[in-house]
C-alpha cells in the first residue's frame, strides 16, 4: 500500500503540473507545425483570401479541440456536470472553476499559432494582397482594373515570372508585413496585460470561494482516479478468486469421477498444494477444455 500512497501523492501534487506540461507541449507543437508546414499561396484572385484566412484560423480551432481532448480534467468536469444529484449536491462554482481553467489552458496553443502566423507575415500578405489600394504603389497605379487584381494577387509569389524583379511587389509585401507584425505584437501585448491583470486582481475578489472551488475540483479529480484504481484492484482479486474456485471445482469433479484421492497429509510436499489435485495429462486437458467451453460464472460468494 505504501507504493500506492506515494503514487497518489504524486498525482495529487502534480495534476496541475501535468496539465501545464501538456499545454506547453501543444504550444511547442504548434510552432513546430507552423515551421514544417509548406505555405504556398495560390496567387489567384479569390483563392488568396480563402487560403490565407483559412491557414490563419482553421489550425487554431484544431489546436483548441486537441487541447480539450488531451486534457483529462475536461472529462471529469463533464461527468460532474451531467451526473444525477443523488446523495451529493452539485456545486456550480466548482464546475465553473474547472471549466475556466480548462478553457484557459486550451487557448494557449491557438493563440501561439495566431501570433506566430502574424509575426511571420506570410498569411496576411497572401490574404490581403488583393485588397491594398493600387494607387499608392508606383508599379500598379497605371494598370487597368482587371489587370491590377491579377497582378496584386501574384504579389505573394516571389518567383512568379511577372513579379520576379518588381520593386512594387516588394513594396506591397513590406507594407502588408508591417501591418501583420504590428497586429501580432499588439495582440501579444493585450493578451499578456490581460493575463497579468487577471492573475493579480483575482485575490481581491472572492478569494475564499476560489479556494473552496479549487479544493473541491482537486478532490473530484483525485476521487475519480482512486475509484479507477480501486476497480482495478477489485477486478484482480475477483479474477484470482474466480480462478481458484474453478480449480477447486475441477478437483472436486475429478475426485468424484476417478476415485483417486489426492493425498493431503503432513508428508505432502509444498508442490502438491500448488498442483491442486490435478496431476495427470488428461486432467489438465479437461481443465483447459472446460475453461474454454464453460467459463465459470461471475460469482465468488
Amino acid at each position, binding site marked *: 500500500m505504501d507504493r500506492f500512497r506515494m503514487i497518489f501523492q504524486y498525482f495529487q501534487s502534480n495534476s496541475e503540473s501535468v496539465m501545464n506540461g501538456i499545454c506547453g507541449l501543444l504550444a511547442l507543437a504548434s510552432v513546430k507545425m507552423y515551421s514544417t508546414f509548406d505555405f504556398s499561396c495560390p496567387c489567384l484572385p479569390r483563392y488568396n483570401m480563402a487560403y490565407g484566412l483559412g491557414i490563419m484560423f482553421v489550425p487554431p480551432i484544431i489546436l483548441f479541440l486537441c487541447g480539450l481532448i488531451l486534457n483529462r480534467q475536461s472529462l471529469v468536469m463533464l461527468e460532474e456536470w451531467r451526473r444525477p444529484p443523488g446523495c451529493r449536491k452539485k456545486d456550480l462554482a466548482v464546475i465553473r472553476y474547472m471549466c475556466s481553467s480548462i478553457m484557459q489552458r486550451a487557448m494557449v496553443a491557438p493563440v501561439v499559432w495566431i501570433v506566430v502566423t502574424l509575426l511571420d507575415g506570410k498569411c496576411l500578405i497572401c490574404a490581403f494582397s488583393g485588397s491594398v489600394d493600387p494607387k499608392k504603389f508606383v508599379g500598379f497605379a497605371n494598370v487597368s482594373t482587371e489587370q491590377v487584381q491579377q497582378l496584386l494577387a501574384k504579389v505573394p*509569389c516571389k518567383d512568379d515570372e511577372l513579379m520576379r524583379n518588381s520593386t512594387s511587389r516588394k513594396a506591397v509585401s513590406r507594407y502588408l508585413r508591417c501591418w501583420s507584425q504590428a497586429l501580432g505584437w499588439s495582440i501579444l501585448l493585450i493578451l499578456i496585460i490581460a493575463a497579468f491583470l487577471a492573475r493579480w486582481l483575482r485575490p481581491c475578489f472572492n478569494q475564499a470561494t476560489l479556494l473552496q472551488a479549487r479544493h473541491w475540483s482537486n478532490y473530484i479529480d483525485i476521487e475519480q482516479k482512486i475509484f479507477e484504481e480501486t476497480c482495478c484492484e477489485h477486478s484482480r482479486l475477483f479474477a484470482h478468486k474466480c480462478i481458484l474456485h474453478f480449480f477447486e471445482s475441477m478437483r472436486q469433479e475429478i475426485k468424484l469421477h476417478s*476415485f*483417486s484421492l489426492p493425498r493431503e497429509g503432513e508428508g505432502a510436499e509444498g508442490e502438491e498444494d500448488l498442483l491442486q489435485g490435478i496431476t495427470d495429462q*488428461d486432467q489438465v486437458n479437461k481443465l483447459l477444455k472446460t475453461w474454454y*467451453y464453460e467459463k465459470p460464472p461471475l460469482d465468488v460468494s
Partner: protein
Amino acid sequence: MDKFRMIFQFFQSNQESFMNGICGIMALASTQMYSAFDFNCPCLPHYNLAYGLGILLVPPFILFLLGFVLNNNISMLAEEWRRPRGRRGKDAAVLRYMFCSMAQRAMIAPAVWLSVTLLDGKCITCAFCTSVPVGSLGNASHPRLSQGEIQRLLARIPCKDIYTGQQLIANEVAVRYLRCISQALGWCFVLLMTTLAFLVRSLRPCFSQAAFLKSRYWSHYIDIERKLFDETCAEHARSFAKVCIQQFFESMSKDLVATHCHLPRKAPADAGEAAEKLLGITDQGTMNMALKSWHRCKPPLHLHPPALPTGNGWAGEGQPPSHPSAPRRETAAYYSWV
C-alpha cells in the same frame, strides 16, 4: 505473489497508456515512412490518377490493419466473442466497448498518413493534374490542341524537367493551384477528425456513463482474468514438471535397487541435503542410464501420490487404467508393496 501483484497493477493502470504509446509510435512511424518514401509520379495520363490515389489510400489501409495486429487485445476480443456460453453469459456491450477502443486507436496512424499526404500536396498534384481548369488559369489564346494532346501535356505538370506546356498553362500556376486545393482538403480533414474525436469523447459522459463504467470494468476484468489464468497454469506446469521429474529420479533409483541389489548407502546425517538431492544416483554409469532412460522413454504425464510412510494402503489407491503403459517395472514393485 507480491511482485506479481505489483506488476499486474502497473500493467493495469498503465495498459491504457501502453496502448497509447504504441499508437503514438505508429503515428510517428507513418510520418517517417512518408518522408522516407520516394514519391515518383509517372506523368502519364491515366497512370497519374491510379498512382496518386493509390499512394493516398493504400498505406492507410495497411496501417489500420497493422494497428489491429499490434494490439494485444485483439485475441482477447476474438476469444470472448467466440467462446461458448457455458455458465457465464456474454455481454454485447463489453464486446462493443473493446472493439471501439481498439478501432479508435488503430485509426490514428492512417489519419496521420492522410493528413501528411494531403498537406504535402504531391499526391493530389499527381492525381489531378489532368483536371486543372486550363480555361481560367491558362492561356485561352493558345492554338487548339486535341483533347488527348492536352491531357498528355497536363499529365507532365508534376515532372518539371519534361514539362513542355508552358504556353498552355504555366507550371508554377498549376502546381500552386493544385497544392492549395490539397492543403485545404488536408486541413479540413484534420478539422473533421478532431471534431469527431471531440464529440465522441465529450458526448459519452452526457449519455451513457453508467453503461460505460460497467463495460470498462468487465473488459479490464476479462483481460486480468486471462493473464492470471495463464500465470496459474504456468505455476501449475512448473510444479507438475518438478514432481514428475522427482518421481522419475526416485523410480530410477528404486529400479537400480531392484535390479542391481545395490543398496544406496544412506549418507550420514551431516551430509544432509546434498546427499538427498542426489536421489541415490551416485556414479557415472547410473547417471548415464538415467539420462538414456529420460530420452528413450519419458515418464507418463501422471503423478503418483507420494509414498505412505507406514505402507498402509487404502482402497482406491489404484492407477487409472487408461494410461499408456510405460515400461516401468517399478510400478508393479510399488503396488505389490501395498
